[in-house]
């Protein structure tokens, strides 16, 4: 069964700013857990904590029996965690290479075997390439495989990031604003894609999203952050009608509908 991801009483301070203040969140396996909140609420910080990128000031984070706060991020990946970024991070590589990076932890060849191109290393590389091509096909990237990733249109770059995360075959997938900056049509496509992937039943998703329509249509559970604190936690319908949530969004001049950063 899927690995557990859980944070308890996590506080993260940047100087005087408490980006997260006593936040607890428990991601139940198999669902789509949305994390919403106004700009600067601490959603990305939470993701950085969950994926082992940021250290916590206090609190505990556990993923699949690993103490996240003491594990280096690559260990979490091996245990089944993958993520995408709010600000796309692709590097100067082709789309194929970018996605292949996701398979890093599923392949083994080291310096010597790569330098010698041993039959084992070659077979492994071929299999990785095939699965990348398969993913690219599914995400509509098959024609761009040999282009430089950062030269693609914005929406395609977002899909490359998703493909890279999926290539890692994660049990838990963290998606930081997967449709931000996309047009309506692209958003619908992406929503459908995520639903399809989730329906295959082996990936738990945690999703930061401003688009409330998407959250309501996809999420099975929803946590709302405001000023680094959890102000509501429950089903999407419950959360959407929660008075604190409405106040947080109205107070910050952002309705929880269409906010693009």
């Amino acid at each position, binding site marked *: 069964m899927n690995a557990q991801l859980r944070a308890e009483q996590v506080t993260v301070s940047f100087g005087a700013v408490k980006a997260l203040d006593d936040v607890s969140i428990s991601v139940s396996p198999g669902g789509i857990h949305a994390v919403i909140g106004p700009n600067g609420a601490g959603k990305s910080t939470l993701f950085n904590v969950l994926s082992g*990128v940021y250290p916590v000031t206090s609190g505990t984070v556990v993923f699949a029996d690993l103490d996240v706060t003491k594990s280096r991020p*690559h260990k979490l990946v091996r245990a089944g965690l993958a993520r995408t970024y709010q600000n796309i991070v692709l590097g100067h590589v082709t789309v194929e290479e970018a996605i292949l990076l996701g398979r890093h932890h599923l392949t083994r*060849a080291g*310096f010597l075997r*790569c*330098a010698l*191109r041993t039959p084992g290393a070659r077979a492994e*590389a071929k299999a990785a390439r095939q699965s990348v091509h398969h993913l690219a096909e599914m995400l509509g990237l098959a024609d761009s495989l040999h282009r430089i990733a950062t030269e693609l249109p914005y929406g395609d770059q977002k899909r490359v990031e998703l493909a890279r995360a999926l290539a*890692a075959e994660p049990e838990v997938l963290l998606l930081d604003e997967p449709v931000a900056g996309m047009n309506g049509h692209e958003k619908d496509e992406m929503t459908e894609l995520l639903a399809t992937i989730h329906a295959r039943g082996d990936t738990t998703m945690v999703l930061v999203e401003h688009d409330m329509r998407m959250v309501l249509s996809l999420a099975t559970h929803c946590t709302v952050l405001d000023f680094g604190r959890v102000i509501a936690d429950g089903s999407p319908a419950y959360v959407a009608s929660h008075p604190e949530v409405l106040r947080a969004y109205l107070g910050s001049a952002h309705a929880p509908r269409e906010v693009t950063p």
Partner: protein
Amino acid sequence: MTTIDQTTSRPTQAVIRGVALALIGVAVCVAPLYLDTFWLRTGLTVASAAVGAIGLTILVGTTGQLSFAHPFLMAGAAVTYVTLADNPVNTAHLGLGLPPAAAAVLAIFAAGALGLAASPLASRLSGIYLGIATLSLVFIGQHILENWTAASGGFFGRPVPPMSLFGLSLADSPTPPVLLGVPLQREELLWYLSAAVIVVAWIAGRNVVHSRVGRSLAAVRDSEVLAATNGVNVRSAKRGAYIASSMFAGAAGVLFALTTGSVAPETFNLGLAISFLAMVVVGGLGSVAGACMGAAFIAGLPLLLQEFSDQLPLIVQTGEAGGMQASTATSYLAGALIVLCMLFEPRGLVGLATRGRSLATRALRRTRILTSRATHN
């Protein structure tokens, strides 16, 4: 009008590549039979620089770790080789009398070990700070070697025992092996050795860059967070890049020692460190072919300018007045080239070559279209 293939098709490309490689192979094999000593020495110098530059481009270009440590590693390997291979009976210095081939392999591993020892620097420092830390290794290395005269020969250096492979000593001999009527002396034999080493270094370097490991190194260069959250153990990736790069430097150091015939600590100085960086920048960071082109340019040019100084304006022989020395002229040219690369073609010589090739294929295609139009009209 019939359809014209728009791009040169893949099989054609493969054939062109194969033919080109075969021609280069033949040229490299027969070259020492025709070239005089000057050109052979130039070739040997370039070859050793190219092997080192391939290693450096993996570290600096692919992994993004600025390093000046190459001369330090080359010196380590060169002195290790000489010490291990020298006959303890005949030498005034430290010598263990190992078979030269074994000594060379061990020297390469010694350089790898030095790289491993230096690699923690990269997990603590980055960018220019890392560069300066590696630079200090060059000075430390020189200092140690200048004082440890038993191994290094001190200021005047020590002679390098010749390589010997399968019972054939790669040295001048009264009864040299003969190929097509040409006696193969030291330079000719070293030429073949260098060619073999360069082929191995090239293939290994390219394989690494285009592999799972190469992608993880590029990820470390682009963003350590990106690499780590994609399952790359950043620390061990950097360590591996250091060790691999250092082993290339080690091979370069041994070749360099064999070519020059003597090692002196003074040779492995700051200037050499900068030359190596110039090679990988001018060639195109992260490109194995570029590293070789850069090496040919930066290591070969001063020798050529020196040799032909009487026919060139502005260049004079060492010690003469009224002009520029060859090495100074090369520094100026390299400096200018680096600036031009940064401004106009960050991919360096390799980028220029790619541009040239695409211009050529486009021109070719255009003429083909024109001629086919002409015939169809």
